[in-house]
């Protein structure tokens, strides 16, 4: 009888056979290629997401429900109202003389914004006192509200243009003789369009990478192939590396798609260090793959895996600074946010893409990303069931 040394918990990490890793990798690659619908979704998802979000950012929103509050009834304000009606930007759902009515309609969601023309507007306009037009937007949907505000400002500018002719022509040139005051309701921070596309990269990668690997092991278990796999001398780390590596390439393709679309369609500037970006995006993809893989070591069915993925996905959207400004969140939410890979990735990408940061500037978020990756990989290895128990 031979006696072998007892396997230490870390032998799994060092006792690797790259031939076996390659076997798993190759098999996974072939399966991925054969699973056309899933592969198509992985490639199409970034394009669809970008176009959907990008459309809301980039095009002129039209037919937005508006309520106009008129405190004054004169030729100019009537002309303004007519222009608003004629323009396809807004659909005037109501004209009111009472402030409360307008507010109520916004609150009820019947109108996206309220255009308020104050008393004495015409008189002060002619006197050159730059009277105010108040626009109150429902910014709970920041993307829509952002578009709406831009549209109404444009309409307002055009609406008064024909009136400023003849004796009033001196009022026409910029700056406009009136002032548009904007109140964003419910989301004072707003979101700029340049912020969204880089952030979308983080969301898309989180969604696909976690989802795909979350069923990496559960699929084998459900199909019964796990029994055969476990009956071979393959080690947990070999399965983990072999199974996740193909998706690094999928992630890279998604990144390329987003970058190309972002530059071509939305003219997003990319001013920072590309090397820093590559390092960050690689770490981020790996961290997400490990997160998904960890889920697949816990979930017993593909259904459970999907639910757990969603459980990760929600905080990734809500607590990462994608939705709400990170520093404005309560402390407990910030703690959760710091533990999510996407939080650090979003910061890095904003720094690099929008502010032109280099590698040293983003170290502060690169190392937490690395720590998260290592912790997730270790947990996944420890969780891997070597038996069918």
């Amino acid at each position, binding site marked *: 009888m031979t006696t*072998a040394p007892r396997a230490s918990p870390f032998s799994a990490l060092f006792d690797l056979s790259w031939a076996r890793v390659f076997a*798993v990798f190759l098999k996974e690659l072939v*399966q991925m290629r054969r699973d056309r619908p899933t592969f198509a979704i992985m490639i199409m998802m970034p394009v669809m997401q970008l176009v959907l979000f990008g459309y809301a950012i980039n095009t002129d929103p039209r037919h937005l429900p508006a309520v106009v509050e008129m405190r004054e009834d004169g030729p100019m304000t009537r002309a303004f109202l007519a222009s608003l009606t004629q323009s396809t930007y807004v659909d005037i759902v109501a004209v009111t003389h009472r402030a409360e009515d307008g507010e109520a309609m916004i609150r009820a969601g019947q109108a996206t914004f309220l255009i308020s023309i104050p008393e004495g507007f015409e008189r002060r306009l002619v006197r050159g006192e730059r009277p105010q037009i108040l626009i109150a937007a429902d910014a709970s949907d920041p993307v829509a509200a952002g578009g709406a505000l831009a549209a109404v400002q444009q309409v307002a500018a055009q609406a008064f243009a024909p009136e400023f002719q003849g004796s009033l022509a001196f009022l026409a040139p910029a700056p406009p003789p009136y002032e548009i005051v904007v109140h964003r309701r419910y989301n004072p921070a707003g979101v700029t369009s340049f912020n969204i596309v880089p952030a979308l990269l983080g969301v898309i990668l989180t969604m696909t990478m976690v989802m795909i690997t979350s069923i990496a092991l559960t699929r084998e278990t459900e199909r019964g192939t*796990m*029994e055969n796999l476990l*009956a*071979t001398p393959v080690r947990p780390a070999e399965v983990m590396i072999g199974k996740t590596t193909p998706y690094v390439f999928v992630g890279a393709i998604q990144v390329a798609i987003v970058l190309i679309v972002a530059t071509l369609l939305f003219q997003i500037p990319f001013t920072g260090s590309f090397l820093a970006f590559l390092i960050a995006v690689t770490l981020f993809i790996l961290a997400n793959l490990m997160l998904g893989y960890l889920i697949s070591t816990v979930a017993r069915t593909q259904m459970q895996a999907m639910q757990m993925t969603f459980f990760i996905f929600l905080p990734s959207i809500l607590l990462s600074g994608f939705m709400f400004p990170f520093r404005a969140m309560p402390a407990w939410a910030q703690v959760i946010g710091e533990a999510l890979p996407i939080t650090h990735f979003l910061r890095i990408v904003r720094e690099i893409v929008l502010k032109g940061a280099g590698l040293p500037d983003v170290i502060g978020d690169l190392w937490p990303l690395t720590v998260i990756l290592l912790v997730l990989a270790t947990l996944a290895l420890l969780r891997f069931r070597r038996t069918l*128990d």
Partner: protein
Amino acid sequence: MSDTVIDVRGLTKRFGDRTVVDHFDLQVPRGAIYGFLGPNGSGKTTTIRMVCGLLKPESGDGEVLGFDVLRESLKIKERVGYMTQRFSLYEDLSIRENLEFISRLYGLDRRAERVDASLADLGLIERQGQLAGKLSGGWKQRLALAACMIHEPELLLLDEPTAGVDPKARRDFWDAIRRYSAQGVTTLVSTHYMDEAVQCDSIAYIAYGKKLIDSPTADIPKQIGLYGWRVAGRPLMRAQELLEQSPGVELVARFGAEIHACGKGPAALERAVRAVKAAEPHVEIAPIEAGFEEIFIYLMSGAMDNFQ
């Protein structure tokens, strides 16, 4: 290395508070074909999984191929070919890709050569590019056997390898197993087919997690001591009803146009059969030797009585 390839003692497995395998011992000598029989749910698959390290037993220990069954499962896995009860190769990989995947995992040299040889053995050279999921049941079984043989294991664990396979394919299958056995490969094979059971050198019979019989196949009839009578002719249904109610008749099994009545007490059995003949004079009766079929039906019905 010892000549006992499987040597396990007291293997016990519980799922929840149900004991599925209860203090199971097994000694299988090198080169033997060991049959593993028992009704569905009796714990055969669970036992085989414990032997190859896929399940951790709650208690018990032992060696497989000289390696500790609890601590050296990786060493055991390298030397064992396990064919699962359910087809567990990748249906979305081709026949060749499956075999190549397995040979890579075992770190085999001359991989292409081995896969080619295996495909030729199977007669699947022309269909090697076909997806495994598209194969019929019999071909899947053959592919699975080829896959678990490709690394030339010393021990084969086959879990109902011929379930649902046509008789010709089953015969080919057993020819292959006997060939491997002649080369010194040890086989533990579970089956429900009596014609396969009689081809085994020894048989272990398990019911509800407990091993009830473990003997060389040839010794089993004598060991059980089951006597039988053949009852034929008309009215057969009536004769069957009478036999089923008779004390001394422990098993009434229908075989085509005849009934086999079996029992452990030869005198009581004969009395019962003659009483039926007296009641229904048209039936014919004759003593027979109880075969494996009768023995195992008898054992299984006994197991039901004990545990249900």
